[in-house]
Structures are given as structure tokens and as C-alpha cells.
């Protein structure tokens, strides 16, 4: 009889115990598939949000802004913004440039002061970076030349203002003086990042430049690359962009790739390693049931092992037999677990998981996470769980292989 047939027969001998093993592995696989899908969803959303709202794929701004960030250095601008954008558009790999003027300030209400961040945008260029139109939930976008604003939904709630109403923001200008401007709210925008929805309002870039005393100057130029590039390749374009800017007399500017800038993204990348370790822990936990089952089998079937040994089955074949039993159990468990995990992740990918307050407002990520199934969360998890559980079965099998036939036949 073939070993595989014997292994199958042995599994079906005690169906309840085998089912327990399969369930343990399935639960571990399901959990890890879900966890990896969730992390992948967070990673993709984080990357999209960073690229769309914070940095583009390569961000150009004054090199000293990072150093003096705490002092609100709005005067450290990108001078000759039109020329800078033309230079950047000539850099290989750059598909679009998006200028922005950012101005943090205070909105004075009757009894309260609300801190907010105005962002001057060029709507057409902004559309090249992200689907801004899909985010507009009411009204329309502000028109160039008009003191109009599109306000983040959360900020509008905090200000208790709606479309048609006005607010005045007081800010520090690029001349390091102060200025204030009144804007009429013409639209509401639902930005996916809580921190942005709570503080941002968008105004035409020309009005922001006037308010900030920044003629042909911007705070940052964001770029979109020709194809959404994987992590790492944006760095090469950033280096080329910075070299091109420095060669044309814009030495004060620095260009950095998005994944170099975001601390949150680096954190998620670091967490991925931690999640791998958590996955291993889960599998070892699930595999302990397999080890336990196999050990029980070895003890229960000691006489049978003795008979098989007396009939000439060698130690290696015995190990192989128990390994096959473990393999079949783990393949079944991993297949069920990964399949359920994929189905669950796909469903949650559509509905989303509302993480509520678990997501810090400081993180560049929305409160609703959409898990994403990928190769790592399916194929890798499947083989990972099969490998760990199968190897776990070998450990007690080695003990079975060492029992002498005479000793085994004497066992009751």
C-alpha cells in the first residue's frame, strides 16, 4: 500500500481529532490572511494619501523648511515657481507638477479661535495628481481670482459654517508679517485623512499667493511620476529633479521621494516585519495542535508502528508517513483558512472596517480601512502555514521512528 494512502486512511480514522487540527491551522491561516490584507490595505491607502495630499511622489520645497518646521517658516518658499515647474517637467519620469501654497492660521469666531490650514491650489493641475472631484461632497470648487473656499467637512462642522457663509483667517505672510482674508464657502470636501478634513480648506492659488505676499512663489511643488512607481524608484527621480534644479540656479530647493518623507509610512514598513513575526507566532500556536495530534497518534499507534517496522518499514518511511499526515492536515487547514480569509478580506475590502479612534488623527490614513488581498496575504500565507504545520508533524514522527519493533509490539 502506498504511504499516501496509509496517511489518508490514518487521518480519517479519527475524524474529530483531524478536524481539530485542520480547524487550528485554518484559524491561524484565516487570521494571518486577514491581518496581512489589513496591513496591505493600510499601506496602500497611506501611500495614496501621502502622494495625493502631502508630498506627491516627489516633493520640492525649500531645503531649510524641515530644519525650521517648528517655527512655521512660511517665508522659505519656492521662488520663480513657474520656472521651477518647467524645469521639473523636463526631468525624465516626471508626468505632472502641482504647485501649492499652504498657510496655517487662525479663524476667529465669537468665543473661540479655530486653527486651520489654507491650501492654495491650481485645480487643473491638482486633478493630475488625484481625483479631487470625487472628494467634493457639496457645492463647487473655488474659482480663480475669487475669495472663495472649499472647506473640509470636519472643519466646516467645527466652524459651524455652511455653503454661502464666510470666514476670515489670520495668517503669517512670506514677508513674516501678518495678513487676513475673508473667504466665502462655496463647497465642502470630504478628505480621507481625519487631520486634513479637520483643518484644511482649499482656495484658488492666486488668492493664496496674494494673501501670503508670494508673487510667483509657492510653498511646495508636488510631482506625479509617469507611472505610479513602486517604493524606491521615486528616489531616483527625486535625485534627478534636485540635480536639475541645482544646475539651473535653484540651489535652495530640495527634492525628496514621498517614501523618504513620511514617518508614518516608514513605521508601516517597520511594522510589516513585526507582523511577519506575529504570523510565525500564530502558526506555531496553530501547529502545536498538529504536534499534539501527531504525538497522540504515535502513542496510540505504537503497536501498529511496531507491526509496520516488523514488516520491514524503515524509520525514514515512518517519518515520511507521519509527515504526509501532517502535510495533508495542514494543506486542508491552510486552504480552508486562506480561502475564508480571502473571502472575508474581499468583503471587508468593499465595505471597509471602521477603525474609529484606533486611528490617530495624526496618521495620514482614514478611519475606514479597506483590506487588500495580495500575493503575500494568500499564496505566501498558504505555503507558510503548510510548511510550519508539516514540519511540526515531523518532530513526534522522529520519536516513532526510533521505537524498536519488539518494544512497540509489547506496548498495549
Amino acid at each position: 500500500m502506498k504511504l499516501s494512502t496509509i496517511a489518508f486512511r490514518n487521518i480519517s480514522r479519527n475524524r474529530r481529532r483531524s478536524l481539530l487540527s485542520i480547524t487550528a491551522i485554518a484559524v491561524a491561516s484565516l487570521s494571518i490572511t486577514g491581518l496581512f490584507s489589513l496591513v496591505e490595505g493600510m499601506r496602500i491607502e497611506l501611500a495614496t494619501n501621502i502622494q495625493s495630499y502631502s508630498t506627491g511622489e516627489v516633493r520640492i520645497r525649500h531645503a531649510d523648511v524641515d530644519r525650521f518646521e517648528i517655527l512655521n517658516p512660511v517665508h522659505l518658499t519656492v521662488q520663480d515657481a513657474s520656472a521651477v515647474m518647467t524645469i521639473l517637467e523636463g526631468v525624465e519620469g516626471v508626468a505632472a507638477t502641482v504647485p501649492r501654497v499652504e498657510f496655517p492660521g487662525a479663524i476667529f469666531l465669537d468665543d473661540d479661535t479655530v486653527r486651520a490650514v489654507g491650501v492654495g491650489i491650481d485645480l487643473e493641475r491638482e486633478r493630475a495628481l488625484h481625483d479631487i472631484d470625487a472628494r467634493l461632497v457639496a457645492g463647487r470648487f473655488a474659482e480663480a481670482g475669487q475669495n472663495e473656499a472649499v472647506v473640509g467637512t470636519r472643519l466646516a462642522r467645527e466652524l459651524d459654517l455652511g455653503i454661502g457663509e464666510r470666514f476670515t483667517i489670520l495668517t503669517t505672510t512670506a514677508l513674516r508679517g501678518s495678513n487676513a482674508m475673508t473667504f466665502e464657502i462655496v463647497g465642502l470636501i470630504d478628505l480621507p485623512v481625519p487631520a486634513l478634513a479637520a483643518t484644511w480648506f482649499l482656495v484658488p492659488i492666486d488668492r493664496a499667493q496674494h494673501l501670503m505676499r508670494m508673487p510667483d512663489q509657492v510653498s511646495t511643488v508636488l510631482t506625479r511620476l509617469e507611472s505610479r512607481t513602486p517604493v524606491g524608484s521615486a528616489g531616483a527621480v527625486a535625485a534627478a529633479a534636485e540635480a536639475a534644479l541645482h544646475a539651473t540656479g535653484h540651489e535652495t530647493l530640495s527634492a525628496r521621494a514621498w517614501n523618504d518623507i513620511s514617518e508614518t509610512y516608514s513605521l508601516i514598513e517597520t511594522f510589516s516585519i513585526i507582523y511577519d513575526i506575529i504570523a510565525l507566532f500564530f502558526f506555531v500556536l496553530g501547529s502545536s495542535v498538529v504536534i499534539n495530534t501527531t504525538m497522540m497518534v504515535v502513542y496510540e499507534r505504537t503497536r501498529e508502528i511496531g507491526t509496520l517496522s516488523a514488516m520491514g518499514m524503515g524509520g525514514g518511511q515512518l517519518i515520511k508517513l507521519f509527515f504526509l499526515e501532517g502535510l495533508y492536515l495542514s494543506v486542508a487547514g491552510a486552504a480552508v483558512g486562506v480561502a475564508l480569509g480571502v473571502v472575508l478580506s474581499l468583503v471587508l475590502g468593499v465595505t471597509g472596517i471602521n477603525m474609529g479612534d484606533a486611528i490617530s488623527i495624526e496618521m495620514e490614513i482614514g478611519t475606514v480601512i479597506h483590506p487588500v488581498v495580495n500575493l503575500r496575504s494568500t499564496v505566501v500565507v498558504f505555503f507558510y502555514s503548510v510548511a510550519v504545520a508539516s514540519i511540526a508533524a515531523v518532530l513526534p514522527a522522529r520519536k516513532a521512528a526510533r521505537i524498536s519493533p519488539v518494544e512497540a509490539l509489547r506496548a498495549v
Partner: protein
Amino acid sequence: MKALSIILLALIPATTLMAQSAEEIITRMERNQVHDTSRMEGRLIINDRFGSRTSSFISYARGADDALIEFTSAGERGQKVLRTRDEVYLFYPDAAELIRLQGAALRDSMLGSDVSYEDMTGNRALLDNYRVSLDGEETINDHPTFRVKLEARGRNVAYPRQTIWVDRELFVMRRAEQFSANGRLLKEVEVKETMEVSGLTFPSRMVIRDVLKRNSSTEFVIDKAEVNISLPRNVFSLESLRW
């Protein structure tokens, strides 16, 4: 024992005299520095770690309570700060609404300088707000001065404690230190030059340092001053902000 009684009896009137002197010193200083009405043209030279910049202004004042400052330099042209007895309003030509500052916002820096809105336009009737005492005499930049300690009577002042050095001859401030309630030094003011107009002497160039800010100082310069003049009607009204 008898000798001790004599010394104590001698000290009591002396202490009383010192307290009266401190009030008299402050009164005479304010007579010089707080005018029935005034119109001044001047500059704020703001130095910080990013460099130096100058904002020019015209100010109007009436007594200790009312002041209007209009900025005339290119970056801030047309911006105005109005202080009435209890309120501070900001007017910006690009804003359709006036901004009324209150609470903590009053302590915000004006134009990024070492001067807060409260400092620039604050109530200057010191004796209304502070108990004063003479703390000694000292020479500041070759000028003999009285050193006067001020303790706030209430909580409605920016600086609960101050020390002011008042010129013994001209009765003009030569130096000031402003402290928090727990004695932490917040600001230093050093008078570099004085000006005499219509028999009144007051600081015309002083350097203010917010010690909580690093590498920062603001020079406050008065280039031209007219005192006790007639001012346009309603100059200290909200309507005047929209001239």
C-alpha cells in the same frame, strides 16, 4: 531698647516716604509718556534668526486707553490695530470682517515681533493696575535711575510683576523687566534714546526682547511725534478702521 524704638520710629516715616516716592516717580514718568493725545510715526525693526525686517507705522493715542496703529510699510500697508479700553480689533484690507482679539490671542506676537498686541496697545495707567514700591537706585547706561518694583493688583494684566528703572532727572523709563506671576522673566525693554516734544520726554528708540524667543529682538523707533494735538473725530471707533 530706647535706641531701638527711636530707630523704628525713624524708619516708619521713611518707608512711607519711599512708597509715596515710588508712586510719584511712576506718576511723573507717565505724565511724560502717556499723552492726552498724540500722533507718532515710527518703525518696528524686527530681528530674528531669519534676518531683519522693518515695518513702519503711524499711531494715534488718547490717554492710557485708546490707541490706533496703522501700518504703512509695503508688506502691511493699510493694516490697523485699534485698542479701546477693553477691546483690540484688527483690520486688514483683504478681509471683509474685523478681527476682535480676545483671551490668549491678545498675547500673540504682532507681525512676528517681540511685541504682543497687548504690549503695543495695552492699558498704560500703571498705578491703576499695579502696587509700586521703590527698590533702590541704579545707574543704567550712564543715567542715574530709580528702580521701581510693580506688583499687579489683579489678574487683568499681561505681566504680574515688573521692574522699571526710571531716569532720576528726566523721569523717563530707561529699562524694564517684565515677569510672570512666578517670577519668570518674560520680556526686557531697554531704552536707547529719548525724545522731547512740547516739554515732555519719552522713549523714542527702545529694544524689546521676548526672552522666551531665541535670537530675537525688536527695535521700536519713533521718528516723529506730536503730542496734545487735536485728532480726527471718531479716530478710535470701529468705523475709523475702514477709512
